């Protein structure tokens, strides 16, 4: 089973009784906590302390300049509730994340099943589908900005004979962003599913075939349950990535047209660096953090409950 899942505390796990290693039941003392100390210092300084300070700033009216700030209680959160643009960005964030999670993992799974088969071109296909993952999201966004240009003779329109203004039409733009993110990261999901597929014992498939199971039945009853850990990690990574998405939107549309592709991360960026409302900006960041935490917790508990030991 995959190890990219949250393990239960060691205390609640029974010792692997009855299987002593070559050294019998000898077990050395645990390593000292000092092994973790240097990592902990850097982690606290760079991640935990600033995040904690951010939580404090979320309750102030700090402008980002000088030391002057006062505590304003939940005023920033009340402002957020009244801020139509910011509230709309919450809807956009959730829709965008949902679209990315569903399509990226669906496509990733199909690609993985395809390149898992014994094809002559499988090695090359894997490289092709994974390559966009290694390119900077900002550069991918600039490329797609051209691919999505409204000219009927160029880019995607020219290829498909369409006349869509992919990034300029407010009813299409959010899905266009989702499309370029899926193009970039479908290969990432594919590789994780592939790792899961390679862990499915071939004997199980052979046994199911002898029992007369068809291709679909073998997938449904043999492969799919054993893929559960890969599904968990894929859903978690794509959800967290979707909720936090920034670079692609910043480079491709910067939230536009109008507010059609504005998400929590672009709104909080503008509040801080365009309007100088650092207190309000961190309050929006805190809301984003709570979204990510809530969704991750639900996924961990729900998805782990359906994982089977492989």
């Amino acid at each position: 089973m995959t190890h990219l899942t949250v393990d239960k505390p060691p205390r609640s796990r029974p010792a692997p009784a009855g299987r002593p290693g070559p050294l019998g039941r000898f077990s050395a003392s645990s390593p000292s906590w000092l092994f973790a100390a240097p990592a902990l210092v850097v982690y606290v300084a760079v991640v935990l302390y600033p995040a904690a300070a951010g939580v404090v700033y979320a309750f102030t009216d700090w402008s980002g300049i000088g030391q002057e700030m006062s505590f304003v209680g939940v005023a920033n959160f009340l402002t957020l509730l009244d801020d139509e643009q910011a509230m709309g960005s919450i809807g956009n964030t959730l829709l965008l994340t949902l679209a990315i999670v569903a399509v990226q993992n669906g496509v990733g799974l199909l690609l993985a099943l395809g390149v898992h088969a014994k094809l002559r071109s499988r090695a090359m296909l894997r490289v092709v589908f994974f390559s966009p993952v290694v390119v900077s999201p900002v550069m991918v966004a600039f490329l797609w900005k051209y691919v999505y240009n409204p000219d009927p003779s160029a880019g995607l329109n020219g290829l498909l004979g369409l006349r869509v203004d992919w990034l300029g039409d407010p009813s299409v733009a959010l899905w266009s962003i989702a499309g370029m993110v899926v193009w970039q990261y479908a290969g990432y999901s594919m590789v994780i599913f592939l790792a899961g597929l390679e862990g499915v014992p071939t004997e199980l498939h052979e046994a199911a075939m002898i029992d007369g199971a068809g291709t679909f039945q073998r997938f449904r009853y043999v492969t799919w349950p054993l893929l559960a850990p890969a599904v968990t990690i894929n859903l978690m990574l794509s959800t967290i990535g979707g909720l936090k998405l920034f670079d692609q939107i910043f480079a491709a549309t910067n939230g536009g047209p109008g507010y059609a592709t504005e998400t929590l991360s672009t709104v909080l960026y503008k509040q801080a660096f365009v309007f100088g409302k650092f207190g309000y900006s961190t309050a929006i960041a805190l809301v984003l953090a709570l979204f990510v935490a809530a969704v991750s917790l639900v996924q961990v508990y729900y998805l782990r409950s359906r994982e089977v030991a492989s």
Partner: protein
Amino acid sequence: MRRTYLLEIVMVAVAVAFLFPVYTLIALSLKDPAQISQTPLALPAPPTLDNFAKAWSAAALGPSLVNSTVITGVSLVALVALGSFAAYFLARAQSRLGYGLYILFLLGIVLPFQLGMIPLYELVNDLGLLGTHAGMILFYTGIQLPFTVFLYTGFIRALPRDYASAAQIDGASHLTAFTRVVFPLLRPITGTVLILNAVFVWNDFFTPLLYLGGSGFETVPVSVFAFVGQYVSDHGLVFAGLVLGALPIVLVFLVLQRYVIKGFSSGLKG
């Protein structure tokens, strides 16, 4: 067997469609402005390398490549060292402290960096590290430690304890047992850790824009971003810049791709 051929044809067709944006990128980078406006989809005829020569100097890619290489290289060394040591304790500790610290590290995967963005900017500024390589290295080491610790801890948990125990019966300390016996066994997951962190650090855009903008120590994505902004309407030139900017990491990937995908699989399987 016929079904395998059919699947192969379908998959190759999907791959060709998937490569359309890449074709656009390369074709436009080889065209002059007249070709781009008249025959945007056609093959470049004749291809020209003018865009590349111009983009290389206009985007100041030479210095950015050095900056990106230094920042990525040192961050990777720090991440492997700090991450593997911490994970050895977290995976082997029998105490509540070990589990508590593990959860504390996992929290970092979930927290959006935006929450600490502004306080961290102040901290980096107060330490005098704004606009320096050291500031960026500290940032990447901290921000990528949770994912690194997560990968290493899972992998070490699946390793038998016996190797380290045997070394300790022979009188080795925990430190020696780890560096001499356990760390070499971590090679597959270290490969995964290196690749995933290299891709993240090399390609990160927003933080170096914020911390390095205007310092003369800009990384590749920041230089390309500024370059694209400047020549926005000249697509041939812009795309030549994108090709040059993406080339180093793509070349590293193409050379190492067998290990990338294998390391990925073994990293996930443990």
